């Protein structure tokens, strides 16, 4: 056997020992939803480019959106935000609100909070306003204050980071403004051409054009029209036309704050060992899949799984949540690290 063949064989054998997570196949199955999610909420540029845009991150961005009047959300959500009960007895408010309040109290000016997953761990990035020197000087103090706040909430599974917003913001701002303008123009041009457009998001490299699912047959036509309009405006971009199911969107909106609450509790506590949480929204049933990093054979697994189930079920079965989800039927699946449902 030639040495190249031996090398190839040995490397192949080594590679075959690597187990592929089954979640990737699930991801491929749900590609449309996954792609839509990211098209809608991805931050176009900046330091958090490498963050995993998990639903947790999405939720945090949407949550911030509620406060700042984001165009993506149902207007009643802001009102809902103040009424929602939170999972467990421990926390009363979403963590970003608690952090904002603490920063306000301490007299800090902030730009926002980025939340996401990095290397399998929740990551909270507080963007302070001020010069780089100022933020560096205050960083330690802010970290100490916020760590204490998070500890009081019982959270022990996160990385906290303070960054200054001035370094990248002028560039970000300019690009975002241009992209927003581009989105607005494209939306009005497409509407002018007679199409029903729900919204246009030009903040990510691929411009997402949302249309009602009833117009799905016009998807390709709208796609071509959008490409032509962008070309005519000398702003060629990639375009994705996304039909949206209004019913499903409504269902998602109803469940949004509920899910956010579950995510915060499960992700930010080590004991639950949660890797990811996925949902499927169907009018007959909403399905919640909690993917953990646990093996069925490990000592505390059964107990932890039972705790996860109890926390979520008690929360979802509470009167307040039932009113919010309109007594919607749901199913809860908890999975082991290989993507198999726990039998207990």
């Amino acid at each position, binding site marked *: 056997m030639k040495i190249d063949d031996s090398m190839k064989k040995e490397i192949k054998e080594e590679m075959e020992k690597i187990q592929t997570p089954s979640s990737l196949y699930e991801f491929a199955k749900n590609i449309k939803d996954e792609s839509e999610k990211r098209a809608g909420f991805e931050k176009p540029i900046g330091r958090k480019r490498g963050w995993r845009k998990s639903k947790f991150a999405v939720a945090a961005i949407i949550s911030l959106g509620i406060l700042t009047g984001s165009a993506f959300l149902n207007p009643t959500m802001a009102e809902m935000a103040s009424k929602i009960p939170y999972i467990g007895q421990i926390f009363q408010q979403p963590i970003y609100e608690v952090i904002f309040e603490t920063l306000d109290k301490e007299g800090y000016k902030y730009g926002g909070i980025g939340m996401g997953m990095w*290397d399998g761990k929740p990551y909270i990035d507080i963007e302070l306003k001020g010069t780089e020197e100022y933020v560096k000087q205050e960083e330690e103090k802010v970290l100490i204050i916020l760590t204490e706040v998070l500890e009081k909430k019982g959270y022990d599974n996160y990385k906290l980071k303070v960054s200054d917003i001035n370094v990248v913001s002028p560039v970000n701002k300019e690009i975002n403004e241009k992209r927003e303008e581009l989105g607005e123009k494209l939306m009005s041009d497409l509407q002018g051409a007679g199409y029903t457009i729900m919204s246009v998001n030009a903040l990510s490299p691929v411009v997402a054009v949302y249309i009602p699912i009833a117009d*799905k047959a016009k*998807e390709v036509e709208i796609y071509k029209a959008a490409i032509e309009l962008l070309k005519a405006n000398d702003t060629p971009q990639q375009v994705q036309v996304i039909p949206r199911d209004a019913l499903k969107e409504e269902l998602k909106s109803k469940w949004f704050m509920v899910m956010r609450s579950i995510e915060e509790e499960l992700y930010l506590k080590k004991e639950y060992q949660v890797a990811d949480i996925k949902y499927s929204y169907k009018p007959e049933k909403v399905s919640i899949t909690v993917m953990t990093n646990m093996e069925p054979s490990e000592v505390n697994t059964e107990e932890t799984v039972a705790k996860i189930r109890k926390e979520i079920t008690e929360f979802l079965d509470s009167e307040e949540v039932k009113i919010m989800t309109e007594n919607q039927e749901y199913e809860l699946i908890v999975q082991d690290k290989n993507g198999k449902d726990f039998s207990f």
Partner: protein
Amino acid sequence: MDQEALMKRIRNGEDEAFAQLVDPLIEKGYRTSFSILRSKELAEEVVQNALIEVYRNIMSGKDIRYFNTWFYKLVSHRSIDAWRKMTRLKESPLEIDVGTDKHGVMESVLKEETENEIKKGISSLDNSDYRNVLILYYYQEQPIQEISDLLGLKSTTVKSHLRRARNALKKRLIENQFIGVNTQ
């Protein structure tokens, strides 16, 4: 069903065709990414992002001729990007498993090369580059020129990494044979 037809079905809104198209490629893609990044979470994230990129490219009507090659190249590129970022951040240092008795070929070649470098009193060899060259050349079967472009190395460097790996393996095979003969 051929890949062209699957892509057409995806563009027509048949989402299940996407899984049919990419499922046979996910394993090799993930293994490549994991070998470069040495992190399950990062590799999973990279492959997820690559899948989204694939989907969006298909939906935007991109003409993709050799889908498998294109997909693997995309995953390799994104993995190297993430790896660069990771090594810059130094958040997750590369782990080279030196604690076990039996090393895989890459580890043993790396170990040998590192020892040689130490003996010579130089430390120019970048182990991770070395590993990536081997994965891309022998597992992904990418041409030398593309590997050199992707890793930002001169093609002579890529060739020399490969040559040294071959020599190290040859040496190991001879040693194993020698031990084999002696123990019989």
